Structure formats: C-alpha cells, structure tokens
C-alpha cells in the first residue's frame, strides 16, 4: 500500500516543475502549459486526501478545479491568440505594455 506522503511528494515535485516552467520559459504558451501542470499537482493532492482521509469532498473539488481550468484555458488561449495577432509575438518579455 502506497502511503499518502508519496502522493504528496509527487505533487510537490510536479508543482515545482510547473513553477520553474512559469519562471524560466519565454514562450507564453509553454508558460500556460506549466500553469496546467501546477493545477494538476493540486488535483493529485485533492484526490489523494480524498482517498486516504475517506471524504468525497476532495473529488468534488477536483471536478470544479477541472471546470475552472477549462474556462481558464479557453480564455487564456483566446487572449494569447489576440495578443499574438496584434503584436506578432508570443514572447513573455515582449508583452510589456498595457495597451497598444
């Protein structure tokens, strides 16, 4: 039987890989994918707690996290596409003005 702390460790590792991705990559879509990684590590945590602590709430929360992630993905990518169409670049460093 795998102990709970293993799942927590895995989720921590994924979380930090996601954070590093957000901080170091310059391509905004890769940054976006790193955010998805972070969300997934949270999902692992929620479901692991739900299983080991015998409560269904964690799983229900994960459903809502996935719902919000979907809304966020749709909006985030729509924004990225609009920015790309206006500036011709998807580089985070170059998105430095609030209006154009």
């Amino acid at each position, binding site marked *: 039987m795998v102990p709970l702390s293993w799942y927590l460790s895995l989720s921590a590792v994924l979380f930090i890989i996601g954070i590093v991705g957000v901080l170091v990559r310059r391509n905004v879509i890769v940054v976006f994918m790193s955010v998805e990684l972070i969300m997934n590590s949270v999902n692992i945590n929620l479901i692991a707690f739900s299983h080991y602590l015998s409560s269904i709430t964690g799983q229900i929360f994960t*459903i809502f996290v*996935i*719902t919000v992630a*979907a*809304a966020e*993905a*749709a909006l985030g*990518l*729509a924004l990225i*596409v609009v920015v790309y169409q206006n500036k011709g670049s998807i580089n985070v460093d170059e998105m430095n003005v609030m209006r154009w």
Partner: protein
Amino acid sequence: MLADYVPVVLLLAIGLLIGVSSQLIGKLVRPDRPDPEKLSPYECGIEPEGDTLSPNAIPYYIYGLLFLLFEVEVLFFFTWAAVYQNMMLFAFIEITFFAFILFLGLIYAWLKGALDWRAG
C-alpha cells in the same frame, strides 16, 4: 476495483505492441530506396512552396474553444443522470436551471455568429 483495470492495461500493451512490432517487422521485409523526389512532401506533383506550418487555423480554433466549454458542461449531465432516479424533483429543477444556462450560452454563440463557418 483495481483488478478491473488490469485487462485495460493489458489491452493497451497489446495495442502498443501491435503498433511497434508491425513497424519493426515491416522494416525487415520492406525495401528502402529513398530519393529526394520521394521524400519531398506531396503537393500534386508541383514543387512544394512556402512554409508548411503556417496555415490559417482560426476557424477551427473557434470550434475548439466552444467545444471545450460545452464538453465540461456536458460532463456534469453524466453525474446527474446517474443519480436522477434517486432524487427526482429536486434534481429536475437543478438541471433545468443548468440546461437553461447552457442553452443561453448556445444562443449567445449563435447570435454572435460564432457558429458560422468563416473560411480563410
């Protein structure tokens, strides 16, 4: 419950094995005589022109966007349908509200012309 998933893994392994092994076996049997004409991308016989990887994918992208949002809503219907018979009226009122909001989204997309196909 976990034992139910062992055959799934087995089938996945078989599927991967079929895919990989048939390509490997094919490698032993088939001829391999490349030449530049063969290796260039197919373009109805004329010389390939322009950059291959920059087509206009915007119209497809819009449908992907709508699909993602509707898919999430539709998944809630599955959980609802599985327990509907246990809590009839209450669940019915809830889902009516839910479906109404989904319908609003569809109507909005329709009126704004997001469902209309825009080529190019």
